[in-house]
């Protein structure tokens, strides 16, 4: 980790060396370029270890040992449901999957956050407004409900970096975007055989 940060700092310093007008580093530039607005506060610009490691431009070589240890760290930090129940209500899960609001400066903090799964994933086959940044999850329930499958799916939702470091997907549990109950509801939306996600297209 330290090696990477040092490397990034050296690269950044070199890139700015000739730029007399620039602030010392990227953090100072960002602090000077953004202002807090409603719930979008300035501390959001500070990066944790995952964000720092995953900010490397495409093609930049990273230290594999560092990446492996970071991934293991994320896996160890995953919090499974307290009561051991993974599956909530798929109908409420459908609402979470379709709701794109939450944590934007323009959003009402009193309202529940959405998961906005449809922004990136295809889910129920009759819903056409889905994005393609992530893989299609239509028919996800065919994977079954073994303990391993439940834990795997929960972990992907809680902190995608536990399995796929630097995935584009948000850490819905680890970052507190969704509540435990919302995560259970999304789990049911994915895995319940009665969920539209697991129905054939009409």
């Amino acid at each position: 980790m330290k090696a990477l940060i040092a490397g990034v700092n050296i690269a950044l310093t070199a890139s700015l060396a000739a730029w007399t007008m620039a602030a010392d580093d990227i953090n100072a530039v960002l602090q000077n370029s953004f202002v807090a607005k409603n719930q979008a506060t300035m501390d959001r610009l500070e990066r944790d270890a995952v964000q720092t490691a995953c900010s490397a431009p495409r093609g930049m070589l990273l230290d594999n040992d560092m990446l492996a240890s970071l991934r293991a760290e994320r896996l160890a930090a995953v919090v499974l449901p307290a009561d051991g129940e993974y599956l909530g209500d798929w109908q409420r899960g459908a609402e979470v999957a379709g709701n794109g609001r939450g944590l934007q400066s323009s959003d009402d903090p009193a309202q529940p956050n959405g998961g906005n799964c449809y922004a990136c994933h295809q889910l129920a086959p009759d819903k056409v407004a889905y994005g393609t940044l992530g893989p299609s999850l239509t028919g996800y329930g065919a994977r079954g409900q073994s303990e391993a499958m439940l834990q795997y799916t929960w972990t992907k939702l809680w902190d995608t970096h536990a399995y796929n470091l630097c995935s584009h997907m948000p850490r819905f549990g680890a970052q507190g975007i969704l509540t435990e109950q919302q995560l259970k509801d999304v789990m049911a939306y994915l895995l319940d055989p009665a969920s539209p996600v697991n129905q054939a297209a009409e």
Partner: protein
Amino acid sequence: MKKPNLEVALLAAWLCAATLAADDGVFDQYRDLMGDENPAVFVIDEGEEFWLTAQGPNAVTLESCDLGLGPGVTAGAYVRFPRHFADTNAVMDLESRLVYCMTTIQGRDLESVTAKPYSLRGDFGTEIEALVTWLAAESEGATIAPEQAHATERAMYALGKDIFFYRAGPHDFSCATCHEQSDKRIRLQALPDLTSHTGAAGSWGSWPAYRISQGLVRTMGWRLRDCFRQQRWPELQMGSEASIALQTYMAVNAAGGTMTAPGLKR
């Protein structure tokens, strides 16, 4: 802004209804129907009027403003931005250069000039939006060729690239989350790959654009600000280093492409 004609209003109303269930095809249809009738034409005229109107304590027009090609030269100026200016010893985007001219030439107050650069929904467009739209039209058909001769301009590109990949906020989003892959979309909206020449040229060359869904012309500065809102970041400031750096990154990636703005977008 002057009143758009009835046809435009009807089309917009039809479009609002149609888009609920439709894909990008309906916007293509709208563009076909409109032909050259981009509602931005009204904003272009308005921008030129602002340029030629004496304002501020000095009661002068912006006609002596140097956009990089010499005082008063507007044709082809847009496509050279962002660029370094000797008089400020800074890399500036068009929006911040206009602000500079308003304050230094016209003597206007910096705070009031920058208080509200971008209109809200339901507003009329702002002076900055109109000026940028007109100046983009003054470069229509020109080749995108941002200055990179000065060291500060190249450093601005490097900084922009770093910010483009900078992941932060509760959702860990960077610009790259949505804009480093080809042929992807969010919901039904196609996402340009801004790390590629093709994606960057298509995007940089088509802003400012008339946003059909908002009934307003939006500038690239606004586009960036709204991206960061969706990234769950704080608010990007017009003319800030981060904004100019990201615009430099996009413009240089777009270099060699053609300026087609003002565009017509969803």
